[in-house]
């Protein structure tokens, strides 16, 4: 099964604080804030879950994997995720 935003909205709605529409709006805004923060290059640290950070990648030579043609990859930013130790342990219980 794949968890989607719709499931998170359901879980929030089940708390009986917000209507379905409000729940959907709030979850949308929540991810929007996280995206805006990463967009400015700032890390987002959720204790117990993990850390999202933006890393700068230098320009490098690469190859088109299909044709093998050499190409120059431009400098870019990538978003990385580091799992928290707590979550990591919980994922590995009963491994």
């Amino acid at each position, binding site marked *: 099964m794949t968890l989607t935003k719709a499931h*998170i909205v359901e879980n*929030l709605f089940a*708390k009986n604080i917000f209507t379905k529409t409000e729940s959907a709006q*709030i979850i949308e805004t929540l991810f929007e804030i996280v995206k805006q923060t990463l967009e400015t290059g700032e890390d987002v640290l959720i204790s117990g879950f993990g850390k*999202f950070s933006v890393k700068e990648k230098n320009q490098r030579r690469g190859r088109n994997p299909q044709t093998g043609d050499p190409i120059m990859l431009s400098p870019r930013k*990538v978003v990385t995720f580091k799992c928290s130790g707590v979550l990591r342990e919980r994922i590995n219980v009963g*491994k």
Partner: protein
Amino acid sequence: MTKSQLIEALAKAEGITLKAAETAVNVTFQSMEQALIKSDRLEIRGFGSFKVKNYEGYKGRNPKTGELIEVESKKLPFFKVGKELKERVNGGTSQD
């Protein structure tokens, strides 16, 4: 940005109480944790997707002492950034 700063920003943006915003943030990350603990896939459109990958154990060395050590197999969540976020951190254009 920390979780408490995210809660404050959400409360402000939505005009809801800090307590309500805290519930929303906790429900979100707890839902995501539960999925990962069950090794379910998790996909947030425009943000990214997670899946739990299995890593085989291997024999390694302590880089400081050179001592031979057994690294046990493990599971780790792998995050793949979504198209929208990928483009936004790069100033709105995809570089591929």
